[in-house]
């Protein structure tokens, strides 16, 4: 349960980090809070040659709202974001979901961008990013690019991020007027991985439901307004289309039940708090 050997770099600037990643190729890994990567290193599921530590880079500590987005830099921890006093007005869905992310002790070190980079299919922050149509800001020594959340995640622990890129920041759209948001999840114990997590966004025209823990990545679907049996049918079709599997925590059938039940509950909650 000790990591295999690696070289370690604490770069003085983002540019230095990117240059090291460009040289290191597939054998280099980025660490910030390490709450996902360190367990994988300890269990030797990953064995990089070089670890590049972003956690002390002031340039990556940006946390501010501008141009309709809340932008969260790569070194900002989940606790720091949770402690932002204006978060519930700015991005209410995140404010509702963050207490479900791991535990007090892991949020104190785990970063928002790190959770997105790790891309666990049941993780709450990637789910919120997809539900809200956020963006992932990637940067390498070659270029910068902004990727919409829905095309960022490819599958379990797999994203479009190249080995020489870092997530410089993620962006969440600020609350829209007349829009309601709701988040709920079901897990074995508080702080465990979600068996199913649901996030709903409802405005005057569209209902949007995003589901984590069922498909191989957080997945969203939009509907025009639905009521009664039509909503049941839509949720049932979505639950089947997500194609969850049986695993040691729950059966696929139970996950479908959760999508139908918890999905309906978050949609109704989002509608009622518009």
């Amino acid at each position, binding site marked *: 349960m000790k990591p295999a050997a690696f*070289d370690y770099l604490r770069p003085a600037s983002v540019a230095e980090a990117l240059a090291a990643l460009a040289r290191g190729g597939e054998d280099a890994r980025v660490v910030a809070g390490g*709450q996902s990567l360190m*367990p994988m290193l300890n269990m030797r599921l990953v064995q990089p040659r070089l670890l590049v530590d972003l956690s002390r880079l002031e340039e990556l500590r940006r946390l501010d709202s501008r141009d309709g987005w809340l932008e969260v830099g790569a070194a900002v921890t989940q606790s720091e974001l949770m402690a932002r006093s204006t978060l519930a007005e700015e991005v209410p869905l995140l404010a509702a979901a963050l207490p479900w992310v791991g*535990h*007090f*002790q892991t949020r104190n*070190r785990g970063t928002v961008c790190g959770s997105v980079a790790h891309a666990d299919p049941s993780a709450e922050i990637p789910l919120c990013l997809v539900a809200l149509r956020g963006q992932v800001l990637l940067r390498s020594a070659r270029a910068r690019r902004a990727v919409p959340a829905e095309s960022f995640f490819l599958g379990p622990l797999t994203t479009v991020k190249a080995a020489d890129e870092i997530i410089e920041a993620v962006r969440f759209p600020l609350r829209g007027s007349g829009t309601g948001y709701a988040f709920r999840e079901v897990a074995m114990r*508080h702080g465990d991985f979600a068996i199913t997590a649901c996030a709903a966004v409802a405005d005057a025209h569209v209902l949007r439901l995003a589901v984590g823990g069922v498909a191989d990545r957080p997945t969203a679907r939009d509907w025009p307004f639905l009521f009664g049996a039509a909503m049941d049918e839509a949720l049932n079709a979505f639950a089947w289309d997500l194609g969850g599997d049986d695993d040691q925590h729950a059966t696929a059938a139970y996950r479908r039940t959760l999508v139908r039940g918890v999905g309906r509950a978050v949609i109704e909650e989002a509608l009622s708090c518009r």
Partner: protein
Amino acid sequence: MPIMNADTRHPVTITLNGRSRTGHAHPRMLLSDFLRHELGAHGTRVGCEHGVCGACTVRIDGVAQRTCLTLAVQADGRRVDTVEGLAPEGRMTALQEAFRRHHALQCGFCTAGILMSLSDYLERVPRPTEGELRDMLSGHLCRCTGYAGIVRAVMDVTGASTEVADV
């Protein structure tokens, strides 16, 4: 800063419970092992070594976090507070006294980590509800007490009432 080579032990200096201490670590060395094996500070326990049990929790720059998910080289230059620093004059803190009164520990393996979490948490949330406290404790595994005594001890110190009956 130059790349630290995997095969070399690098000097790491931390302020451990108020005193500057230096040891040496390969980049892969966990902070938990650095504290225990390099600096001889055995108060911090190691349980699962992959971030699940919370036994290894200390405060780094005041913030409670897991040392088995932190590299020693990452702590270089930081302030690290461990259970040994809670009672510097050999007198237990009010919380430690309450742990004893309420049988909040049996084997004690989880206790150091829980006390370090609480010392950070109660500064931020001085009077948690029982529900909030149990949420925070979900980051720690205690296989002996069933948590009831731990909850009672904290509620006693914060002056809040608790639903958990005394046994």
